[in-house]
Protein backbone atom coordinates (compact mmCIF):
# COMPACT_ATOMS: atom_id res chain seq x y z
CA UNK A 1 0.00 0.00 0.00
CA UNK A 2 1.35 3.45 -0.91
CA UNK A 3 -0.22 6.15 1.22
CA UNK A 4 -0.44 9.58 -0.34
CA UNK A 5 1.61 12.41 1.07
CA UNK A 6 -0.13 15.59 2.27
CA UNK A 7 0.88 17.25 -1.00
CA UNK A 8 -0.62 14.39 -3.02
CA UNK A 9 -3.93 14.60 -1.14
CA UNK A 10 -3.94 18.35 -1.84
CA UNK A 11 -3.10 17.65 -5.50
CA UNK A 12 -6.08 15.30 -5.81
CA UNK A 13 -8.50 17.82 -4.27
CA UNK A 14 -7.15 20.58 -6.54
CA UNK A 15 -7.97 18.56 -9.68
CA UNK A 16 -11.69 18.82 -8.82
CA UNK A 17 -11.70 22.64 -8.58
CA UNK A 18 -13.44 23.81 -11.73
CA UNK A 19 -12.65 26.81 -13.90
CA UNK A 20 -14.12 29.97 -12.40
CA UNK A 21 -14.81 28.47 -8.96
CA UNK A 22 -14.66 30.62 -5.80
CA UNK A 23 -12.85 28.51 -3.22
CA UNK A 24 -11.84 28.84 0.42
CA UNK A 25 -8.90 26.76 1.60
CA UNK A 26 -8.83 25.81 5.28
CA UNK A 27 -5.69 25.83 7.38
CA UNK A 28 -3.42 22.77 7.04
CA UNK A 29 -3.46 20.37 4.08
CA UNK A 30 -6.17 22.35 2.20
CA UNK A 31 -3.85 25.39 1.95
CA UNK A 32 -1.47 23.27 -0.15
CA UNK A 33 -4.15 22.73 -2.82
CA UNK A 34 -3.49 26.20 -4.25
CA UNK A 35 -0.15 24.89 -5.57
CA UNK A 36 -1.74 22.12 -7.62
CA UNK A 37 -4.52 23.76 -9.62
CA UNK A 38 -3.92 22.77 -13.27
CA UNK A 39 -2.21 25.48 -15.32
CA UNK A 40 -4.51 27.80 -17.27
CA UNK A 41 -7.46 26.98 -15.00
CA UNK A 42 -8.64 30.14 -13.22
CA UNK A 43 -9.75 29.49 -9.64
CA UNK A 44 -10.39 32.41 -7.28
CA UNK A 45 -9.31 31.89 -3.69
CA UNK A 46 -11.08 33.56 -0.78
CA UNK A 47 -9.50 34.24 2.60
CA UNK A 48 -11.71 34.80 5.65
CA UNK A 49 -9.72 37.85 6.78
CA UNK A 50 -11.05 39.91 3.89
CA UNK A 51 -9.35 38.83 0.66
CA UNK A 52 -10.99 37.69 -2.57
CA UNK A 53 -8.28 36.70 -5.01
CA UNK A 54 -5.56 35.40 -2.72
CA UNK A 55 -2.28 34.98 -4.61
CA UNK A 56 0.71 32.70 -4.05
CA UNK A 57 3.06 33.01 -1.08
CA UNK A 58 5.40 36.00 -1.40
CA UNK A 59 9.04 35.30 -2.14
CA UNK A 60 11.47 35.87 0.71
CA UNK A 61 12.06 39.57 1.29
CA UNK A 62 8.85 40.74 -0.40
CA UNK A 63 6.47 40.04 2.51
CA UNK A 64 4.03 42.85 3.37
CA UNK A 65 3.25 43.16 7.11
CA UNK A 66 -0.33 44.20 6.26
CA UNK A 67 -1.03 41.24 4.00
CA UNK A 68 -1.60 37.83 5.57
CA UNK A 69 -3.86 34.84 4.96
CA UNK A 70 -6.25 33.03 7.32
CA UNK A 71 -3.35 31.05 8.78
CA UNK A 72 -1.61 34.38 9.54
CA UNK A 73 1.17 33.61 7.06
CA UNK A 74 2.45 36.23 4.60
CA UNK A 75 0.30 36.37 1.46
CA UNK A 76 -0.08 38.18 -1.83
CA UNK A 77 -3.05 39.51 -3.77
CA UNK A 78 -3.78 38.00 -7.18
CA UNK A 79 -4.30 40.22 -10.21
CA UNK A 80 -7.81 41.65 -9.86
CA UNK A 81 -7.98 40.53 -6.25
CA UNK A 82 -9.63 42.85 -3.73
CA UNK A 83 -10.07 43.46 -0.03
CA UNK A 84 -13.25 43.62 2.00
CA UNK A 85 -14.05 43.90 5.71
CA UNK A 86 -14.81 40.92 7.92
CA UNK A 87 -18.60 41.11 7.82
CA UNK A 88 -18.53 41.02 4.01
CA UNK A 89 -15.91 38.25 3.97
CA UNK A 90 -18.25 36.13 6.09
CA UNK A 91 -21.34 37.15 4.17
CA UNK A 92 -19.60 35.48 1.20
CA UNK A 93 -18.97 32.39 3.33
CA UNK A 94 -22.27 32.11 5.15
CA UNK A 95 -24.52 33.18 2.30
CA UNK A 96 -23.61 30.35 -0.08
CA UNK A 97 -21.49 32.48 -2.40
CA UNK A 98 -18.43 30.22 -2.26
CA UNK A 99 -18.54 27.21 -4.58
CA UNK A 100 -16.22 25.04 -2.53
CA UNK A 101 -14.78 24.99 0.97
CA UNK A 102 -11.86 22.60 1.43
CA UNK A 103 -11.44 21.82 5.12
CA UNK A 104 -9.25 19.70 7.34
CA UNK A 105 -11.00 17.31 9.74
CA UNK A 106 -10.48 15.23 12.85
CA UNK A 107 -13.53 13.09 12.08
CA UNK A 108 -16.32 12.78 9.50
CA UNK A 109 -19.47 10.70 10.01
CA UNK A 110 -21.26 8.60 7.41
CA UNK A 111 -23.97 11.29 7.29
CA UNK A 112 -21.36 13.95 6.50
CA UNK A 113 -21.17 15.42 10.00
CA UNK A 114 -17.87 17.23 10.51
CA UNK A 115 -15.70 17.51 13.63
CA UNK A 116 -12.66 19.73 13.10
CA UNK A 117 -12.52 22.41 15.80
CA UNK A 118 -12.13 20.94 19.27
CA UNK A 119 -10.26 17.98 20.71
CA UNK A 120 -11.87 18.42 24.12
CA UNK A 121 -8.49 18.84 25.83
CA UNK A 122 -9.56 20.86 28.89
CA UNK A 123 -6.06 22.22 29.50
CA UNK A 124 -6.26 24.38 26.37
CA UNK A 125 -8.88 27.02 25.59
CA UNK A 126 -11.10 26.08 22.65
CA UNK A 127 -10.84 27.96 19.36
CA UNK A 128 -13.34 27.83 16.51
CA UNK A 129 -12.27 30.64 14.15
CA UNK A 130 -14.21 30.48 10.89
CA UNK A 131 -14.61 26.68 10.86
CA UNK A 132 -18.34 26.61 11.60
CA UNK A 133 -19.11 29.39 9.11
CA UNK A 134 -17.15 27.62 6.36
CA UNK A 135 -18.73 24.24 7.10
CA UNK A 136 -22.28 25.59 6.97
CA UNK A 137 -22.09 28.25 4.30
CA UNK A 138 -20.17 27.00 1.27
CA UNK A 139 -22.16 25.35 -1.52
CA UNK A 140 -19.99 22.27 -1.26
CA UNK A 141 -17.80 21.18 1.64
CA UNK A 142 -14.99 18.75 0.89
CA UNK A 143 -12.63 17.38 3.51
CA UNK A 144 -8.93 16.49 3.29
CA UNK A 145 -7.56 14.22 6.01
CA UNK A 146 -5.51 11.17 6.94
CA UNK A 147 -7.72 8.10 6.70
CA UNK A 148 -6.89 6.95 10.25
CA UNK A 149 -5.61 8.63 13.42
CA UNK A 150 -2.17 8.42 15.01
CA UNK A 151 -3.00 5.12 16.69
CA UNK A 152 -4.68 3.63 13.64
CA UNK A 153 -8.20 4.47 14.82
CA UNK A 154 -10.76 5.19 12.06
CA UNK A 155 -11.52 8.85 11.52
CA UNK A 156 -14.47 8.15 9.25
CA UNK A 157 -17.08 7.20 11.83
CA UNK A 158 -20.69 6.11 12.25
CA UNK A 159 -21.01 9.21 14.44
CA UNK A 160 -18.35 11.73 15.35
CA UNK A 161 -16.95 11.30 18.87
CA UNK A 162 -15.43 14.81 19.00
CA UNK A 163 -17.44 18.07 19.26
CA UNK A 164 -19.30 18.78 16.02
CA UNK A 165 -18.53 21.66 13.69
CA UNK A 166 -21.66 21.16 11.56
CA UNK A 167 -24.15 18.42 10.71
CA UNK A 168 -24.60 16.72 7.30
CA UNK A 169 -22.35 19.07 5.35
CA UNK A 170 -19.45 17.02 3.92
CA UNK A 171 -19.96 15.87 0.33
CA UNK A 172 -16.55 14.40 -0.54
CA UNK A 173 -13.64 13.08 1.53
CA UNK A 174 -10.08 12.99 0.19
CA UNK A 175 -7.88 10.80 2.38
CA UNK A 176 -4.36 9.48 1.94
CA UNK A 177 -5.96 6.18 0.86
CA UNK A 178 -9.14 6.98 -1.07
CA UNK A 179 -11.65 9.44 -2.52
CA UNK A 180 -15.06 8.85 -0.94
CA UNK A 181 -18.38 10.54 -1.67
CA UNK A 182 -20.94 11.04 1.09
CA UNK A 183 -24.27 10.09 -0.45
CA UNK A 184 -27.77 9.88 1.03
CA UNK A 185 -27.55 6.09 1.05
CA UNK A 186 -24.03 5.90 2.47
CA UNK A 187 -20.35 6.24 1.61
CA UNK A 188 -19.26 5.48 -1.96
CA UNK A 189 -15.56 4.87 -2.70
CA UNK A 190 -14.66 6.40 -6.08
CA UNK A 191 -10.90 5.96 -6.02
CA UNK A 192 -8.44 3.90 -3.98
CA UNK A 193 -4.63 3.86 -3.83
CA UNK A 194 -2.75 0.91 -5.31
CA UNK A 195 -1.76 -2.06 -3.16
CA UNK A 196 -4.73 -2.02 -0.79
CA UNK A 197 -7.80 -4.22 -1.10
CA UNK A 198 -11.37 -3.09 -0.63
CA UNK A 199 -11.52 -5.27 2.49
CA UNK A 200 -8.44 -3.58 3.97
CA UNK A 201 -9.89 -0.12 3.33
CA UNK A 202 -13.14 -1.23 4.98
CA UNK A 203 -11.18 -2.43 8.03
CA UNK A 204 -9.80 1.11 8.47
CA UNK A 205 -13.24 2.70 8.18
CA UNK A 206 -16.06 2.43 10.73
CA UNK A 207 -19.18 2.75 8.55
CA UNK A 208 -19.97 0.35 5.70
CA UNK A 209 -18.33 1.35 2.43
CA UNK A 210 -19.80 0.84 -1.01
CA UNK A 211 -17.40 0.67 -3.93
CA UNK A 212 -18.10 2.32 -7.25
CA UNK A 213 -18.64 -0.05 -10.17
CA UNK A 214 -16.17 2.24 -11.92
CA UNK A 215 -13.58 2.22 -9.10
CA UNK A 216 -10.38 4.00 -10.15
CA UNK A 217 -6.82 3.72 -8.91
CA UNK A 218 -5.80 6.92 -7.09
CA UNK A 219 -2.34 7.63 -8.51
CA UNK A 220 -1.11 11.23 -8.22
CA UNK A 221 2.12 12.32 -9.90
CA UNK A 222 5.18 11.60 -7.76
CA UNK A 223 6.17 15.26 -7.91
CA UNK A 224 3.02 16.35 -6.09
Amino acid sequence: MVKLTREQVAWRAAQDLREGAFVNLGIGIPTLAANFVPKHREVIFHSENGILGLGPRPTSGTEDPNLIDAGKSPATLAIDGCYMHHADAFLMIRGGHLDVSLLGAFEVSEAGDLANWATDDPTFPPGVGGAMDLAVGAREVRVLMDHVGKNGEPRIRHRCTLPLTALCVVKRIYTNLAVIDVQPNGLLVREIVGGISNIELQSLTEPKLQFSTNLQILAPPLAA
Partner: protein
Amino acid sequence: MINKQVKTCAEAVAGISDGATVLVAGFGAVGVADHLLDALHDQGAKELTVVANNAGTGDYGLAKLIDSGRVRKVICSYPRSGDYRAFLAAYRSKSLELELVPQGTISERMRCATAGLGGFFSPVSAGTKLAEGKETREIGGRLHVFERPLKGDVALIKARAADRWGNLIYSKSARNFNPVMATAAELTVVEVDTMVELGEMDPEAIVTPSIFVDRVVVVGEGAWSS
Protein backbone atom coordinates in the same frame (compact mmCIF):
# COMPACT_ATOMS: atom_id res chain seq x y z
CA MET B 1 -14.34 73.73 12.50
CA ILE B 2 -14.66 70.02 12.95
CA ASN B 3 -11.40 68.44 14.05
CA LYS B 4 -11.43 64.98 15.60
CA GLN B 5 -7.67 64.72 15.83
CA VAL B 6 -6.23 64.54 19.35
CA LYS B 7 -2.54 64.92 20.12
CA THR B 8 -1.78 61.85 22.22
CA CYS B 9 -2.93 58.29 22.70
CA ALA B 10 -3.64 59.16 26.35
CA GLU B 11 -6.12 61.80 25.18
CA ALA B 12 -7.58 59.33 22.71
CA VAL B 13 -8.48 56.77 25.39
CA ALA B 14 -9.49 59.29 28.09
CA GLY B 15 -12.79 58.57 29.80
CA ILE B 16 -12.99 54.84 29.04
CA SER B 17 -14.52 53.54 32.24
CA ASP B 18 -14.20 50.42 34.35
CA GLY B 19 -16.47 47.65 33.10
CA ALA B 20 -16.52 48.97 29.52
CA THR B 21 -17.04 46.67 26.54
CA VAL B 22 -14.09 47.34 24.23
CA LEU B 23 -14.10 46.28 20.57
CA VAL B 24 -10.50 45.46 19.64
CA ALA B 25 -10.10 45.19 15.87
CA GLY B 26 -7.46 43.14 14.06
CA PHE B 27 -6.78 39.63 12.83
CA GLY B 28 -3.73 37.97 14.36
CA ALA B 29 -1.21 40.79 14.79
CA VAL B 30 -2.41 42.68 11.69
CA GLY B 31 -4.61 45.78 11.86
CA VAL B 32 -4.52 46.03 15.67
CA ALA B 33 -4.47 49.44 17.41
CA ASP B 34 -1.59 48.46 19.68
CA HIS B 35 -0.70 52.05 20.61
CA LEU B 36 -4.25 52.67 21.84
CA LEU B 37 -4.25 49.36 23.74
CA ASP B 38 -0.98 50.30 25.48
CA ALA B 39 -2.48 53.71 26.30
CA LEU B 40 -5.58 52.03 27.71
CA HIS B 41 -3.30 49.95 29.90
CA ASP B 42 -1.63 53.09 31.22
CA GLN B 43 -5.03 54.78 31.65
CA GLY B 44 -5.96 52.05 34.13
CA ALA B 45 -9.53 51.00 33.19
CA LYS B 46 -10.34 47.57 34.58
CA GLU B 47 -13.06 44.88 34.57
CA LEU B 48 -13.12 45.22 30.79
CA THR B 49 -15.01 42.98 28.36
CA VAL B 50 -12.95 42.69 25.19
CA VAL B 51 -14.41 41.68 21.82
CA ALA B 52 -11.70 40.57 19.39
CA ASN B 53 -10.91 37.82 16.94
CA ASN B 54 -7.88 36.62 18.88
CA ALA B 55 -6.71 37.18 22.43
CA GLY B 56 -3.48 39.11 22.20
CA THR B 57 0.08 38.11 21.40
CA GLY B 58 3.44 38.72 23.09
CA ASP B 59 3.69 41.21 25.93
CA TYR B 60 2.12 44.32 24.41
CA GLY B 61 -1.29 45.63 23.47
CA LEU B 62 -4.18 43.31 24.34
CA ALA B 63 -1.83 40.71 25.89
CA LYS B 64 -0.47 43.39 28.25
CA LEU B 65 -4.00 44.38 29.32
CA ILE B 66 -4.84 40.73 30.01
CA ASP B 67 -1.56 40.10 31.80
CA SER B 68 -2.27 43.08 34.10
CA GLY B 69 -5.63 41.64 35.10
CA ARG B 70 -7.68 44.40 33.46
CA VAL B 71 -9.80 42.09 31.37
CA ARG B 72 -12.74 40.26 32.95
CA LYS B 73 -14.06 38.61 29.81
CA VAL B 74 -12.94 37.93 26.24
CA ILE B 75 -15.45 37.38 23.44
CA CYS B 76 -13.48 35.93 20.52
CA SER B 77 -13.36 33.18 17.89
CA TYR B 78 -9.80 31.94 18.25
CA PRO B 79 -7.72 32.72 21.35
CA ARG B 80 -4.90 30.32 20.44
CA SER B 81 -3.10 32.60 18.01
CA GLY B 82 0.52 33.72 18.03
CA ASP B 83 2.19 33.92 21.43
CA TYR B 84 -0.97 33.80 23.56
CA ARG B 85 0.70 33.04 26.91
CA ALA B 86 -0.92 36.00 28.69
CA PHE B 87 -4.40 34.77 27.75
CA LEU B 88 -3.56 31.15 28.57
CA ALA B 89 -2.32 32.03 32.07
CA ALA B 90 -5.45 34.07 32.82
CA TYR B 91 -7.71 31.37 31.35
CA ARG B 92 -6.08 28.62 33.39
CA SER B 93 -6.23 30.64 36.61
CA LYS B 94 -9.93 31.29 35.86
CA SER B 95 -9.43 35.03 36.34
CA LEU B 96 -10.89 35.60 32.89
CA GLU B 97 -14.07 34.35 31.24
CA LEU B 98 -14.07 33.20 27.59
CA GLU B 99 -17.13 33.44 25.33
CA LEU B 100 -16.24 31.57 22.15
CA VAL B 101 -18.18 32.76 19.08
CA PRO B 102 -17.79 31.69 15.43
CA GLN B 103 -15.85 34.34 13.55
CA GLY B 104 -18.62 35.32 11.16
CA THR B 105 -21.13 35.45 14.00
CA ILE B 106 -18.97 37.97 15.90
CA SER B 107 -18.81 40.33 12.92
CA GLU B 108 -22.50 39.92 12.10
CA ARG B 109 -23.57 40.52 15.71
CA MET B 110 -21.72 43.84 15.60
CA ARG B 111 -23.13 44.70 12.16
CA CYS B 112 -26.56 44.00 13.62
CA ALA B 113 -25.96 46.47 16.45
CA THR B 114 -24.75 49.05 13.93
CA ALA B 115 -27.87 48.57 11.85
CA GLY B 116 -30.21 49.01 14.81
CA LEU B 117 -31.52 45.44 14.60
CA GLY B 118 -32.51 43.19 17.49
CA GLY B 119 -30.67 40.07 16.42
CA PHE B 120 -30.71 37.45 13.69
CA PHE B 121 -31.13 33.73 13.05
CA SER B 122 -28.03 31.96 11.69
CA PRO B 123 -27.48 28.35 10.61
CA VAL B 124 -23.89 28.59 11.87
CA SER B 125 -23.27 26.51 15.04
CA ALA B 126 -26.75 24.89 14.92
CA GLY B 127 -26.56 21.47 16.57
CA THR B 128 -23.15 22.13 18.13
CA LYS B 129 -21.86 22.91 21.62
CA LEU B 130 -21.67 26.62 20.78
CA ALA B 131 -25.45 26.77 20.30
CA GLU B 132 -26.28 25.28 23.70
CA GLY B 133 -28.85 27.36 25.58
CA LYS B 134 -29.68 29.52 22.56
CA GLU B 135 -33.11 29.91 21.00
CA THR B 136 -33.49 27.95 17.75
CA ARG B 137 -35.95 28.03 14.86
CA GLU B 138 -36.35 25.98 11.70
CA ILE B 139 -36.30 28.26 8.67
CA GLY B 140 -36.53 26.84 5.15
CA GLY B 141 -36.11 23.34 6.53
CA ARG B 142 -32.85 24.22 8.24
CA LEU B 143 -32.13 24.74 11.92
CA HIS B 144 -31.09 28.29 12.83
CA VAL B 145 -29.73 29.77 16.07
CA PHE B 146 -30.76 33.17 17.41
CA GLU B 147 -27.84 35.56 17.86
CA ARG B 148 -28.04 38.86 19.71
CA PRO B 149 -26.55 42.17 18.62
CA LEU B 150 -23.16 43.03 20.10
CA LYS B 151 -22.42 46.68 20.81
CA GLY B 152 -19.28 48.23 22.23
CA ASP B 153 -18.88 51.14 24.61
CA VAL B 154 -15.67 51.88 22.76
CA ALA B 155 -13.94 50.61 19.60
CA LEU B 156 -10.16 50.74 19.17
CA ILE B 157 -9.45 51.02 15.45
CA LYS B 158 -6.31 50.90 13.32
CA ALA B 159 -6.47 52.69 9.96
CA ARG B 160 -3.95 53.84 7.39
CA ALA B 161 -5.13 57.42 7.06
CA ALA B 162 -7.81 59.82 8.29
CA ASP B 163 -8.85 63.39 7.58
CA ARG B 164 -9.94 65.83 10.29
CA TRP B 165 -13.60 64.82 9.90
CA GLY B 166 -12.64 61.20 10.60
CA ASN B 167 -13.08 59.58 7.18
CA LEU B 168 -10.91 56.46 7.10
CA ILE B 169 -9.06 54.26 4.65
CA TYR B 170 -7.21 51.06 5.49
CA SER B 171 -4.29 49.01 4.25
CA LYS B 172 -4.74 45.62 2.56
CA SER B 173 -5.75 42.81 4.91
CA ALA B 174 -5.24 45.13 7.89
CA ARG B 175 -8.79 46.29 7.10
CA ASN B 176 -10.30 43.04 8.56
CA PHE B 177 -12.58 43.79 11.57
CA ASN B 178 -11.79 47.52 11.64
CA PRO B 179 -14.66 48.92 9.51
CA VAL B 180 -17.17 46.66 11.30
CA MET B 181 -16.05 47.59 14.80
CA ALA B 182 -15.72 51.28 13.91
CA THR B 183 -19.48 51.39 13.35
CA ALA B 184 -20.56 49.38 16.39
CA ALA B 185 -19.46 51.42 19.42
CA GLU B 186 -20.62 54.49 21.31
CA LEU B 187 -17.09 55.90 21.15
CA THR B 188 -14.85 55.09 18.18
CA VAL B 189 -11.16 55.88 18.63
CA VAL B 190 -8.74 55.48 15.73
CA GLU B 191 -4.97 55.33 15.47
CA VAL B 192 -3.66 56.16 12.01
CA ASP B 193 -0.31 56.25 10.27
CA THR B 194 -1.04 59.64 8.78
CA MET B 195 -3.52 62.53 8.51
CA VAL B 196 -4.52 63.91 5.11
CA GLU B 197 -6.18 67.15 4.14
CA LEU B 198 -9.95 67.23 3.83
CA GLY B 199 -10.79 66.42 0.22
CA GLU B 200 -7.53 64.61 -0.41
CA MET B 201 -9.06 61.13 -0.11
CA ASP B 202 -10.81 59.69 -3.14
CA PRO B 203 -14.49 59.71 -2.04
CA GLU B 204 -14.94 56.41 -3.91
CA ALA B 205 -12.25 54.83 -1.74
CA ILE B 206 -13.32 55.97 1.74
CA VAL B 207 -14.21 52.81 3.67
CA THR B 208 -15.39 54.23 6.99
CA PRO B 209 -17.35 57.50 6.69
CA SER B 210 -16.72 60.15 9.35
CA ILE B 211 -20.15 59.74 11.00
CA PHE B 212 -18.80 56.67 12.83
CA VAL B 213 -15.56 58.21 14.10
CA ASP B 214 -15.03 60.25 17.29
CA ARG B 215 -11.28 60.60 17.92
CA VAL B 216 -8.20 60.19 15.73
CA VAL B 217 -4.56 60.08 16.78
CA VAL B 218 -1.48 59.79 14.54
CA VAL B 219 0.98 57.13 15.63
CA GLY B 220 3.21 56.70 12.60
CA GLU B 221 5.31 58.62 10.17
CA GLY B 222 3.75 56.90 7.14
CA ALA B 223 3.56 59.13 4.10
CA TRP B 224 0.24 59.55 2.36
CA SER B 225 0.10 58.49 -1.29
CA SER B 226 -3.13 57.93 -3.16
